[in-house]
Structures are given as structure tokens and as C-alpha cells.
């Protein structure tokens, strides 16, 4: 009989939620018990339910969520050693839409295998793609297969991967490089991290296949230093692959050589831009250079280089081993396969999801995401992070594919999906994303260095109630021209959050400018906190919690908020036992 397996989600999120302690409790509880394997695993995507553990028993898999050390004892007794399923602790059932509407290809192993054990990857068909490519296919056939699959770059731009490979393959030159852009830096995005942490061998295999296809013997993985666990697991995976003959010299006895290095990023979002990334690997400032020439002809150290991101490479082994046709059958005609999204913001089921292309935003938000918390109204969803745009409620049925999204003013991006409800101010959202890109601008070209700064200043003015009617035109003028004239993708997309919120929510901007009011109640400068005297019981708790000493009055005396001192920190409103404080 198969041993019972207990897999505890030990991704960064899981650990942050307390997975280490839960793991220790399991270790203690299972000490001396035979026939049960306790293993760490990567992220299964149910962030809201962390700590999560999967129990694999008699061929059944059950995912338990919201685990604490206290729950471990009962879980061992009833679910692991006993034959019961603890219904009320189940995080998600396969038949529920949260899982049923997903299609997992890239994430098929995440959360189900021990990422630090290569055997488990091999058991689930790992390195079969590489073996097939090396032993049964010519490099041209591999490129052709990727072209057939229709796979487009998952880093944001959506350039056909097969075509990119073909350019690199055809580029003249002996020395070529394979580079993985693992510098996932969008706020609200953690798709690539989860793959690196949960299924690192899939990335290695994808890069190896690419190396064979384009004729390269050397690769670099450029990872954010902010992902220590991902780096650790990648290093372990590389050691294992090398030991087993999948990496290094004469791979699988075929004469194909490939060495791989990890380069840690040093904290610059712009290094997600491919020419800046290459500059960074070369040890220079991450200031992009103009394209063309594209990296496919002049890349790392001026040699032909293929750059894809983690998700793109992780799709490759599955495409090669199962065939490009099969992959192309998923999704839509022009956007094939699946896409991983990080679902965050005002949504019930935050987490990591993988869905077939062509699925509607409505299905993602309501069926998989479980809708908006506390019965509030859905307002918009930001797709593509700081480079993307927002999709408002009336476009909820928009299918998720590269071209529809671009048409609506957003982009696929790397997969950040932030949900916003009626309490989210769209001017604030635009400010938030622009504030991010503005700080991350490298400073090389004028429009991005100077222009994003001026846009941000205008947004700050509007948020503070000091906007002027012509600011709307100024923002559009700046935005349109920054998009048109910036040197690299960062600048060319930085105004998108502003332009797209202006497109759908201009009235909200106007409310800030003309009425000095924030309809969503989010721009603190435009808020007023007041004490409703009829409800106030003069308990003076608010007086004590106010960090700015803005509330006057001794116990039993009338309390008043001094609007000049109030910093709108919300502390009084939160602490008032009688709900006697309101914000207007």
C-alpha cells in the first residue's frame, strides 16, 4: 500500500503564515509512526487559507487550510491515521469553482510535490520533455513545436516564444545565451516566485530545451534577491540536475552541454526590462538601451540571447513532452494555453490561480475569486500591474487574452490581478502605481525621468483637493507623449494606470477637482472625521488613542476633533466602542 503523505505548504506565504510551526507540530505528532511521509511542498495557491497541508491517502487528496499547531493533533488522529475527512477544515474541494474553473499546467506540481526532491519531479514526467527533445528531435523541430503551440511570452509583451527562439537560433554566432527573466517585480505579483519555489526543475528543464533549440551552452537565471527561498530551491534543483546528468557536460549522453548560473538582482524594477536586465548581468547600471538590435541578435555580451520569463520556460517541458498541438487546443486561437494570475485586493479568495486563456474576468472574480468581501460592489480590476490598466465593471465579460486586454487599455502583464471595490479610489490607485514606476525609473530618458514625476505631482495635487480643471488635459498630454517617446517598456507603459482610470473614471477625478471630495472615501486629505455627539458617550477612549492629540475633552466632557491637527489615521474610528465617529 502507498504510504500516506502529508505535504505542508512551505512557500514564502505559507512560512509567513506560520507553516514552520505547523510542520514542527506534525513532526512531533508523527514521530515514530510508520507509513506516513511528512514533506514540505510549494504554494498550492490558496493564500487566503494558509497554512495549508495536503493529505494524500489511499489515492485521495484532501487540502486542509487555516491550519494552526492546535489543529495538528486532531488532523493526525482523524484524517491521517484514521479514515475520516475533517469536512469543516477543508480549504477547497476539487469540484468547487475555485478549483474546477482552473486548469493547471504550469502549476500542476506546485503544492503537490516536494520541490527539494527531484525524484518527485521525475515521477510526474519531469525531464521527459528534455529527453524527447535531445533524443528524438532536431533543434529546428523543437523551435517548430514551440511555434505550433502558439505560446506567447508570459512576461507581459506576449511576443510569440517560438518566433523569438527562431530569431536567436538563426542569429549568426558560435556563442549564444539563454536567459531567464525571474526578476518579477510588479507589486501584487508572485506567480513566478511560486513556480521557482514549488517546481524549480520545470524552469531548468524549459531553459535546457531552449538551449538545445537555439544552440546555446550557457544560461543565466536573473532572480530578485528579495526571493531568498526561491534562490535556495533553484540552487538545490541545479545541484540535483547536475548530479543526475540533466545539467552540465554531455547531458543524457547526447553530447549536449549546458551550464547554468544564478544572478541575483540588486533591487531595481527596471531590470525586468530585457536590455536593463542584460546590463545588470554584465555588472552595469540597469539603464536600458534602445532596441533594435534585439537581444536575439545582440544580447548578453553582444552575443545572440534568448530571454523569456519563468512562466514561459515552465510551459516548455509540457509543450515538448505532450505536443504543441495539445497546448494550442487550450485557450483561444491567438492566445493559447493557460495564464497564471496572482489574485489580490478586495476579493474573497486571494491566491494564485491558473486559468485557460479566454476565460472571462467575471468568472475569475466571482467563480474562482469568490466575489468581493462584505457584500460590497465590484468596481474594477487592475491587470498587468504598474504597466497595465483597469477594467471596469461593465467590461466584466471581457475574455482574458492578449489582444482583448490591449484593446481595453490594459495589458496581460505578468499576471497581477488586483480587485477593487467601491471603497477604492481610482485616483489613489493611479497614484499608487505611478508612484511605484516613478521611483523605479532609471532616469536615462527625459520623458520617463521628468514626465512621470510631473504626472505624479499632478495626481498628488488632485488627491489633496488642489487640482485644477486643466490638470485632466495635462495628465492626458503627458501620458500620451510619455507612452510615445520613452526609451523602454517601463516608461512606455508607466502612464497606463493613469490613462486607463481617466478613460473609465474621469468623473472621479473631476469630483476631486471640482468638489474637493473623494467619492470612495480613500483620499485622506479630503476626509473629515467627526464625532456624532448624539451617539458619543464621552468615554474619552478616542482622546487617548489619537496619536496627534487632535481630540479634546476629558471624560464626561464633550469631545471634539481639531481638524487642523487630525492626521486622518482612522485610529479613533476603529477604537470607538459606540460607532460615534464618522468619516465624511
Amino acid at each position, binding site marked *: 500500500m502507498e504510504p500516506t503523505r502529508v505535504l505542508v505548504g512551505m512557500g*514564502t*506565504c505559507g*512560512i*509567513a*503564515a506560520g507553516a514552520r510551526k505547523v510542520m514542527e507540530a506534525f513532526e512531533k505528532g508523527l514521530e515514530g509512526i510508520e507509513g506516513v511521509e511528512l514533506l514540505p511542498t510549494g504554494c498550492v495557491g490558496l*493564500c*487566503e487559507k*494558509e497554512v495549508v497541508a495536503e493529505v494524500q491517502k489511499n489515492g485521495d487528496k484532501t487540502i486542509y487550510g487555516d491550519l494552526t499547531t492546535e489543529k495538528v493533533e486532531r488532523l493526525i488522529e482523524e484524517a491521517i491515521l484514521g479514515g475520516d475527512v475533517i469536512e469543516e477544515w477543508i480549504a477547497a474541494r476539487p469540484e468547487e469553482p475555485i478549483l474546477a474553473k482552473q486548469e493547471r499546467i504550469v502549476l500542476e506540481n506546485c503544492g503537490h510535490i516536494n520541490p527539494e526532491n527531484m525524484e518527485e519531479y521525475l515521477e510526474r514526467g519531469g525531464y521527459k520533455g528534455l529527453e524527447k527533445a535531445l533524443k528524438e528531435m532536431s533543434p529546428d523541430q523543437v523551435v517548430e513545436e514551440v511555434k505550433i503551440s502558439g505560446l506567447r511570452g508570459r512576461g507581459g509583451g506576449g511576443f510569440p516564444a517560438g518566433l523569438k527562439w527562431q530569431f536567436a537560433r538563426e542569429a549568426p554566432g558560435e556563442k549564444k545565451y539563454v536567459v531567464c527573466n525571474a526578476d*518579477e*517585480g*510588479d*507589486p*501584487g*505579483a*508572485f506567480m513566478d*516566485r511560486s513556480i521557482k519555489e514549488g517546481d524549480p526543475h520545470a524552469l531548468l528543464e524549459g531553459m535546457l530545451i531552449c538551449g538545445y533549440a537555439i544552440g546555446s551552452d550557457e544560461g543565466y537565471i536573473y532572480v530578485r*534577491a*528579495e*526571493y*531568498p527561498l526561491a534562490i535556495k530551491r533553484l540552487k538545490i534543483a541545479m545541484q540535483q540536475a547536475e548530479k543526475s546528468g540533466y545539467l552540465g557536460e554531455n547531458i543524457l549522453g547526447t553530447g549536449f552541454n549546458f551550464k547554468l548560473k544564478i*544572478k*541575483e*538582482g*540588486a*533591487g*531595481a*524594477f527596471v531590470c525586468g526590462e530585457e536590455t536593463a536586465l542584460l546590463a*545588470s*548581468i*554584465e*555588472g*552595469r*547600471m*540597469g*539603464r536600458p538601451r534602445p532596441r533594435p538590435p534585439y537581444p536575439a541578435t545582440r544580447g548578453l*555580451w553582444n552575443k545572440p540571447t534568448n530571454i523569456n520569463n519563468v512562466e514561459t520556460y515552465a510551459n516548455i517541458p509540457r509543450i515538448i513532452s505532450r505536443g504543441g498541438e495539445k497546448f494550442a487546443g487550450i485557450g483561444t486561437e491567438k492566445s493559447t494555453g493557460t495564464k497564471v494570475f*496572482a489574485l*489580490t*485586493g*478586495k476579493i474573497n479568495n*486571494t*491566491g494564485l490561480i491558473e486559468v485557460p486563456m479566454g476565460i472571462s474576468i467575471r468568472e475569475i472574480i466571482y467563480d474562482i475569486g469568490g466575489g468581493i468581501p462584505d457584500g460590497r460592489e465590484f468596481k474594477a480590476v*487592475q491587470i498587468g500591474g504598474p504597466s497595465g490598466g483597469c477594467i471596469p465593471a461593465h467590461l466584466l465579460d471581457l475574455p482574458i487574452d492578449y489582444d482583448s486586454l490591449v484593446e481595453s487599455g490594459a495589458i496581460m502583464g505578468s499576471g*497581477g490581478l*488586483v480587485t*477593487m471595490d467601491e471603497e*477604492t479610489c481610482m485616483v489613489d490607485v493611479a497614484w*499608487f502605481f505611478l508612484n*511605484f514606476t516613478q*521611483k*523605479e525609473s*532609471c532616469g536615462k530618458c527625459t520623458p520617463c525621468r521628468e514626465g512621470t514625476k510631473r504626472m505624479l505631482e499632478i495626481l498628488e495635487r488632485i488627491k489633496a483637493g488642489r487640482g485644477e480643471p486643466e490638470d485632466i488635459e495635462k495628465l492626458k498630454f503627458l501620458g500620451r507623449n510619455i507612452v510615445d517617446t520613452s526609451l523602454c517598456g517601463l516608461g512606455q507603459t508607466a502612464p497606463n494606470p493613469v490613462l486607463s482610470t481617466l478613460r473609465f473614471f474621469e468623473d472621479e477625478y473631476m469630483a476631486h477637482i471640482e468638489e474637493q471630495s473623494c467619492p470612495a472615501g480613500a483620499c485622506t486629505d479630503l476626509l473629515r472625521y467627526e464625532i456624532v455627539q448624539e451617539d458619543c458617550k464621552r468615554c474619552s477612549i478616542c482622546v487617548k488613542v489619537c*496619536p496627534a492629540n487632535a481630540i479634546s475633552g476629558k471624560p464626561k466632557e464633550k469631545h471634539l476633533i481639531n481638524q487642523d491637527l487630525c492626521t486622518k*489615521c*482612522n485610529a479613533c474610528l476603529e477604537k470607538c466602542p459606540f460607532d460615534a465617529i464618522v468619516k465624511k
Partner: protein
Amino acid sequence: MEWKIEGSPNEQGGEKPKVGRQLMEKTLEQENCREKVEEIVASFPEKKGALIPALQAIQEEFGYLPRPALEVLAKSLRVPFSTVYGVATFYAQFHLEPRGKHIVRVCMGTACHVRGGKKLLETLERELGVEAGGTTEDLNFTLEEVACIGACGLAPAVMVDDETFGRLTPDKLTEVLDQYRQ
């Protein structure tokens, strides 16, 4: 390793590196520093592309990037000193000033922003008596904002060194902080 996402010492409004202080450091066991840096450089067989990993190694060794170390590095790698300085100030990870024993990073990512990350930052600024980017006088804490630590499901979140703490409130945060006080 010590790192951060945002707010390098030369970020807008931030302080410029103090030349005086850096000159003072020149007296600090310069020879020792030279040996260490040369050792680090020697550990990279390939000099090309070694600048950033070497800076990372130097920062891991000294906790920050001391000026004499950068001078030695520039010479050993045959890179202009101005370029070494440029790279060190371009990337947010690098610090030209000594830093606290514990690095407290407040996530300012989308999810944390929406769920009150700013309030956590204000609490920390109050508790530690330093602004974001600053180091406490006893060199115990350095407080920083980060763009996103990717723990959005746990928003709002704070990282202390390599530990992430999620679903925080100002009260819970104060408790967390107490674990790291001297």
C-alpha cells in the same frame, strides 16, 4: 544577506553620502579591508560581470559598502571608481552607510496599501523614532519601505530580517517588534 527594495540612501529627499564620514572610515583598518576585498574578487574567476556579485559579497561581509572597499574593488576589477559608485547608488539593495542589526521592512505593495500598510509604517516610525530609511541610534533597527514582498494574501505584512509577519495590526506589530529589541 541584508537587502532592500526601495529607498537607497540617495533616493529623493534622502541624504547624500557624507564625505566626511566616509573619509573617517579610511582610517578603519584599511589594510584589513583590502585583503578581504581582494579575497572576494579572487573568488570570482571571471572578472567580467563580477561587479554586482562582488558588491553583494562586500555588503554581506561589512553590512554595507565602505568607501575604501569600493576603491579597492574598482582597482581590482579595473572598473572606473565612478562607475562602481554609480552602480552602488543605482541599485536599492546597496547601502553606503552602516545599517541596523535588524532590518524592518514594511510592505507597501498593492494589497498591503489597500489593507493599511501605511498605518503599520506610521506605528513603526513612532515606536522606533526614525523615519523610513533611517537607522535607530543604537544601530539595532533600520526601518524601510519595500515595494512588495509577495505576501499579498497576508496583507498587511512586515518583514523583520528574513521573517515575514502577516495580517498585522499596530498592536500585533508592537509585540513583534519587542522580540527584536535589545
